């Protein structure tokens, strides 16, 4: 998801304290920043919340790519508001991570030098206006499936950030679907754009949930700690099951010849994405990986003088106030 392939960090804590901690989690207690927590819990959360935050910030870029070309004033305003919300979500998440004793600047530097990742989906390009529809419909649709249960995650600040994010996200998927409806009911060129967007973004959307749980050795600990609520395969299945009828409604074809309703499991059988491509993207070999980090690096470097100057001005103001007293 927005936090893919998060390794649970090893923990070497006092077994008695660990047992008490686990009991609190099992009882549904929220863990707060000043509470005792296993070192592994803290580190895993920093990694997971940080990666989630980075995904929101890098996620601004593929959609930001179309703000200046939005085809009407209303679409421009909606898209800008949506991409702005993503900046807000990144901000809430960074603040949640900061309660664990890491600064936003440190997290940013880890994103820029590659020590921390962002969701694979945002390394893909947005090539036509229909991608604004498909990103909202598919990518936000997938994200919501993951984020709604995370409102119940065990770490208080993370859970509270997710509550706020989910509240704000509710219009994102709908605006995407609204764009798709306009496209499929439009001209031949618009229909072509819509199908093309689905063709390109379908498998990258499936990848968002991460590789199969069978291959993930780290899920178990994270699930025991309630910082991961559902399995990857379970959420992916749910996504496919909810999206196929929506594609049918739009009159679009999901690019999977093996897609078939399976009565026994009450869900669709579908093809897995190319997982070697997924691992390539995570390693920084996505179609837009270089551009995405370059854009963030540029914003960071070019903004340094502004951040510094504001601090310098605040210090001067404080000094002047003291002198006047």
């Amino acid at each position: 998801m927005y936090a893919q392939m998060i390794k649970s960090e090893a923990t070497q804590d006092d077994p008695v304290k660990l047992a008490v901690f686990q009991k609190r989690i099992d009882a549904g207690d929220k863990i707060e920043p000043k509470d005792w927590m296993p070192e592994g819990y803290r580190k895993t959360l920093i990694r997971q919340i940080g990666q989630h935050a980075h995904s929101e910030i890098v996620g601004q870029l593929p959609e930001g790519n179309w703000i200046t070309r939005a085809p009407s004033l209303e679409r421009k305003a909606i898209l800008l508001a949506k991409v702005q919300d993503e900046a807000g979500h990144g901000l809430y998440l960074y603040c949640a991570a900061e309660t664990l004793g890491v600064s936003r600047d440190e997290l940013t530097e880890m994103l820029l030098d590659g020590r921390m990742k962002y969701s694979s989906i945002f390394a893909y390009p947005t090539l036509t206006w229909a991608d604004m529809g498909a990103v909202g419909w598919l990518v936000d649709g997938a994200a919501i499936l993951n984020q709604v249960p995370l409102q119940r995650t065990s770490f208080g600040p993370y859970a509270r950030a997710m509550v706020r994010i989910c509240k704000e996200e509710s219009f994102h998927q709908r605006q995407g679907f609204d764009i798709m409806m306009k496209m499929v009911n439009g001209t031949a060129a618009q229909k072509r754009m819509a199908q093309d967007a689905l063709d390109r973004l379908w498998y990258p959307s499936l990848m968002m949930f991460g590789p199969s749980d069978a291959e993930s050795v780290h899920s178990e600990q994270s699930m025991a700690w309630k910082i991961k609520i559902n399995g990857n395969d379970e959420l992916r299945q749910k996504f496919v099951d909810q999206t196929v009828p929506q594609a049918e409604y739009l009159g679009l074809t999901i690019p999977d010849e093996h897609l078939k309703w399976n009565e026994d499991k009450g869900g669709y059988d579908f093809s897995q994405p190319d997982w070697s491509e997924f691992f390539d993207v995570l390693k920084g070999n996505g179609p837009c990986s270089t551009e995405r980090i370059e854009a963030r690096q540029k914003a960071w470097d070019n903004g340094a003088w502004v951040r510094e100057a504001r601090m310098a001005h605040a210090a001067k103001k404080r000094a002047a106030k003291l002198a006047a007293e």
Partner: protein
Amino acid sequence: MGDNTLVLGQRLSEWCGHAPALEEDIAMANTALDLIGQTQLWLGLAAERKGQGHSADDLAYHRDAWDFRNLLLVEQPNRDFGVTMMRQFLFDCWHLEALKALTAHADAEISAIAQKSVKEVTYHRERSTDTVIALGDGTEQSHKKMQAALDRLWPYVGEMFTADDDDLMDVAALRPGFDAHVMASLTEATLTRPDSDFAHQGGKTGARHSEHLGHMLATMQSLPRSYPDAKW
């Protein structure tokens, strides 16, 4: 009024995802959203008065550069954060005076738009003023950048007060209010008002825009122009 807000809103929206801090990114998007909202009102009213079933979008997306009546100031490129905020500050100072004048306009629809906008722009000016003061006063480097931004943009100030037949108000009368706020803020920002009052002209009359506007419109209008039959 609508072309000013459209062109500046478009310029500001270019920043989304690239600002010096998340808080600034969000704030700039808010200002851009206000300006796009005001554009819908102004161009909506203009289209309605024009008749023939025109819409705000028709005016935004299907006119060429020479039909735009925006100030040269707002079509200037973003360059860096300092130039962007200085441009914003100078425009906000004019914009607020203009809107205050328009709240008393005889045309009820014009005064209604002005009354709605004046609240938004009061905040825009507060924020851009504080930013210009902080960055002007901040460090040696930031002071230099802000003085350079002011020097670069000052030649576009005069046009804001040059009257022409299309004005909705007496623009020359806006100058004292503009000067008072600008001068007080520049002093606090430790910045020096340029000596020369040379003023480029031609944006608000449409007679001679800068080269930048054409590029902006080529981007902004590309979809509706390429697919004239499409509804989005």
